[in-house]
């Protein structure tokens, strides 16, 4: 914690404030899923939301996506206090969400999925314009999709994630919420998606990303917000050690990860000490 206060003002985010939460609480009956959450996200910034199971990450994302309504607290989006009654309200404000299960139609091709529900010229679909726009979106992300005229069923997990992210960009949102974007992916595909997240950020969008994988989080996040039992439990920067992160996530300073880390440090110091 001491280290955290030291470094909190080290990086001043470049972009304007996109989203600011103050005192957000959400309870389901007697259970408080979220208590007094504060969170700021700026344009051109990737904020990672980490925490153990049941820490409230998904509840927080669903609150931002308009699926849940907070019981207390204020959400300020681009300087305006907002209330989101349903998912389409969030979408119209400029908050796009990519859920963990992606929600793509496997029997439709890439273009049809990107434009699903928002087709151009409803009575005589403008396939050419839709295909061009799809390629533009994918190329802006430097995405590697061989063809946009093949069904989603023939794409790999990483490519599907790419299509889902490209679709969320169609309405030109200001903030993108990614729920476990790398959870089901292999090494190369994970790297591809992490590149993608950086490119989305470089376009000046704010990104909130939920992840369990500390390596992925440290690879792309500008700030790491830890939740524990529905409360803020510290803000870290990518150079934080695994030990610090795991400690904040679990609330314990002593566990197998920290023990091993300690052992390694001790061995290192020993070997360094051994060579004059």
């Amino acid at each position, binding site marked *: 914690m001491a280290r955290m206060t030291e470094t909190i003002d080290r990086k001043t985010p470049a972009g304007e404030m996109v989203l600011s939460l103050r005192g957000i609480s959400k309870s389901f009956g007697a259970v408080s899923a979220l208590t007094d959450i504060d969170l700021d996200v700026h344009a051109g910034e990737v904020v990672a939301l980490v925490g153990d199971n049941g820490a409230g990450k998904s509840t927080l994302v669903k609150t931002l996506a308009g699926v849940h309504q907070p019981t207390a607290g204020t959400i300020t989006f681009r300087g305006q206090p907002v209330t989101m009654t349903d*998912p*389409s309200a969030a*979408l119209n404000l400029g908050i796009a969400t990519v*859920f963990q299960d*992606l*929600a*793509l*139609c*496997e*029997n*439709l091709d890439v273009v*049809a999925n990107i434009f*699903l*529900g*928002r*087709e151009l010229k*409803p*009575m*005589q*679909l403008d396939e*050419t*314009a839709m*295909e*061009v726009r799809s*390629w533009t979106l994918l*190329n802006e992300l*430097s995405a*590697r*999709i*061989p*063809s*946009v*005229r*093949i*069904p*989603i*069923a*023939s794409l790999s997990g990483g490519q599907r994630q790419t299509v889902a992210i490209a679709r969320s960009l169609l309405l030109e949102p200001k903030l993108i919420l990614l729920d476990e974007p790398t959870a089901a992916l292999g090494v190369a595909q994970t790297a591809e998606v992490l590149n993608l997240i950086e490119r989305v950020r470089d376009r000046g969008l704010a990104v909130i990303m939920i992840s369990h994988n500390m390596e992925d989080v440290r690879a792309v996040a500008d700030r790491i917000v830890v939740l524990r039992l529905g409360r803020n439990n510290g803000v870290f920067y990518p150079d934080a050690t695994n030990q610090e992160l795991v400690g904040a996530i679990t609330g314990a300073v002593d566990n197998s990860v920290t023990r091993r880390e300690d052992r390694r440090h001790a061995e290192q110091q020993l070997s360094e000490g051994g060579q004059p």
Partner: protein
Amino acid sequence: MTGNVKDNAFPATMLDRSDERLKHEAGIGGAVRAFIDRVRSGDLGSLPVVVGLALIWTVFASLNPIFLSSNNLVNLLFDCSTVGVIALGIVCVLMVGEIDLSVGSISGFASAIVGTLWVNQGWPVVLAILAAVAVGGLIGSLYALLYNRLGMPSFVATLSGLLAVLGMQLYILGSTGSINLPYGSAMVNFGQMLVMPRLLAHILAVVPGVVMLWTGVRTISRRREANLSAPSLGSIVLRAAATTLVLEIIVLYLNQDRGIPWMFGLFVGLVMLMNYALTRTQWGRSMTAVGGNREAARRAGINVRRIYASAFVLCSMLAALGGVLSASRLASASQQAGTGDVNLNAIAAAVIGGTSLFGGRGNAYSALLGIIVIQSIANGLTLLDLSSSLRYMITGGVLAIAVIVDSLARRSRVSHGRA
């Protein structure tokens, strides 16, 4: 960053051809190779039903040459049109992954309504037909209500509908049991005799080719403008010419007898309209999406309930229209109308034609191809003077083969990475 380097290296590549991993074929030979490739990976399209039809026709023609006479084929087209319209409605509900088992009863009920209102009550025939189709729509919206609001599976809702609607049909026909429609009236003539003038049939047979050519040329120019790859002009001209040639030969052959029935023209017109609606409109895209992944469609902002409702209503309305057509074909509205094998023939036609029972895959032409297969079997066995027992068994076998081909093709598609 690698993307930028690549873009600079190949500034002239087309938008959709910049990925070096993608195989693409050019020209007419390429189109043929791509087709073979598609079939080998299990994306069969209409191929099995066309092959099956050729097989069935060869067998029947060798057993009885009358089968392929133009007179018999014209009769075949008359018979196809009634159940074919019902099958077109089944394609709609199958697209969203649901089923309507009551189409037979609805068609019988519709014919009873027309008989009662027109013959017994003296309504104008057009009003009576509209009333029958409207009642069909009402039944469909009831199914939609049961499905959307009360979560009743369409299988059960329409199964109870099958009985209830059959009851209503028997009720309004009353004790007489059947109503004869007057011979010589326009409606009965439409179902039994009216054919297109020869010249008009030839002109109409050119229309699909011209439309293909026109839309093809327009697509080419628009895609070239947008820096996308475009199909070659040659392959489009070839396809349009082949289509026109086949249609003209069919018209020429059938014109040796009476000609193309207007009723079949109505059926084909409806099929083409449905094909456009399913492939080129937002509604059709939503239907496919709901059939493929309902939750994804809902999250994309599609009003899923409205899509289901449109499918059920359209299916019931087409079933009612099919009932009206079969009443005009038989010149009567009887207690037997719509019973027996009408239900299963309509569903089997859609499935044999290539529409998946599991939703999200299919097209309007499957109703046309499937019903021609089923009616060919019925017609051929009648010509051979074989009983309906054999007809049921053979139709059942063909349906089983169609479903087996579909599931094998699906397995192959999955392993070849096609949806």
